[in-house]
């Protein structure tokens, strides 16, 4: 005990000990609860059991009826913004225009909390933002956008298209 790290911090400085102990406690508590509250981070990625899906669904963006966007033409950081917000927008639309976090909290707390989640305003403005960011990244003038959902299955090691349907076009 006398050789422990926190004991030495305690001997060195009480305020520093309090800060570090609170941070450690907050981090452990966040992990036990499974609820991340920045800066108490939870490191549970890829720990959920994966279930074999019947199909994989991807979003395919077509610009001006001609150019199919391959987000892998861009670095990982750019891909994040090309893919993740669009996927979340689709989750909201699939949920009847309600941010899934609103439902999540409603189930947990039995009360409906809509702020600070994405309501009509953010959803209506999303396409304008997506158009602006795509224009910046691709260098193209975006006149028309079409987003399709492609349903895929794995044939051996290569995904093959089963079907495709229009998600939205602007």
């Amino acid at each position, binding site marked *: 005990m006398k050789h422990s790290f926190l004991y030495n911090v305690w001997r060195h400085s009480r305020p520093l000990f309090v800060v570090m102990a609170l941070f450690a406690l907050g981090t452990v508590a966040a992990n036990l609860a499974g609820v991340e509250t920045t800066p108490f*981070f939870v490191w549970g990625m890829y720990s959920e059991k994966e279930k074999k899906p019947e199909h994989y669904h991807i979003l395919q963006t077509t610009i001006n009826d001609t150019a199919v966007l391959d987000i892998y033409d861009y670095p990982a950081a750019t891909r*994040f913004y090309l893919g993740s917000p669009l996927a979340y927008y689709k989750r909201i639309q699939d949920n009847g225009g309600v941010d899934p976090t609103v439902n999540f909290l409603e189930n947990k707390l039995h009360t409906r909390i809509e702020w600070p989640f994405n309501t009509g305003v953010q959803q209506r403005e999303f396409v304008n933002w997506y158009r602006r960011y795509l224009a910046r990244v691709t260098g193209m003038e975006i006149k028309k956008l079409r987003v399709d959902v492609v349903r895929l299955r794995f044939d051996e090691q290569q995904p093959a298209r089963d079907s495709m349907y229009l998600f939205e076009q602007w």
Partner: protein
Amino acid sequence: MVKFYAAEERKILARVVFTGILLSLLYAFFTDTLLHQLEQPVLRYPYVDITYWLMHGLGIPEFATGTMAWVFDVLLIGACIGCWLYPGSRILVWIFLVLYFVYFIGCNTFGAHHAGNKIGMLLIAVPFVVRNLASFNYLWQGLRYLLLFAFSSAFLWKLFRLSWLQPDQGILIMKKNWVLYLYNNTDTVWANVLHWLLAHPALVNGLFITGFLMEGFFIVGFFTRNFDKVLLVLSVLLVMGFWVTADANFVELLILCLTLSPFRLQPPVHRPGIHPS
């Protein structure tokens, strides 16, 4: 033996740290992902993180990505350069920390995902805000424990959720995360590597279990520093593994590995006011 850094070593360490952060910010600039390059995003993802709620309540992420976002980015990069130029200036580190925190929240909330890759960049600057050298050293060692906790708890999450017993866990993670790439790229060198890996599910599932055990090995670090060099190598291998199996970029997290590094100008000594643990 605890690595206690002298004042001169602390300055050099600060330069190393802020060089890493500056490179990360330059990468963001060249990939159109600094806040002013996000084109005033609208969709946000506070999820159930109260800190994000608070930040949105104050309108800070919206302000930082608004019409004056370029000013924010100039200040952020300027503060980082300032910390590099004046490694002893605590006020500059405080300014940098506040700005980087806003940047961190902005990136994650408008990216619609609370990514962990920038956590290392956010926390590595914290020890430089204190004046006292011993306090700096304890905070630096605290970051080492945080890194150990990150990997150890990742191991425990998998252990208690029993995902390590799930058949084909590795191959299913790989398929889910690389399906889009493989659909669009059928015959690249990397696609062929992935095809080969997918054709050998036992190997990929074995890699997942190996990674799981490697994460578990970080628990040893709580009891001894004798394996820090091994843990350093494991950190790099794990980050490479995250990329290969899950297309996840955790390179920036590796900056925390500086706390495992044998960085030293002088032989270790006991310094007044510092109690080795």
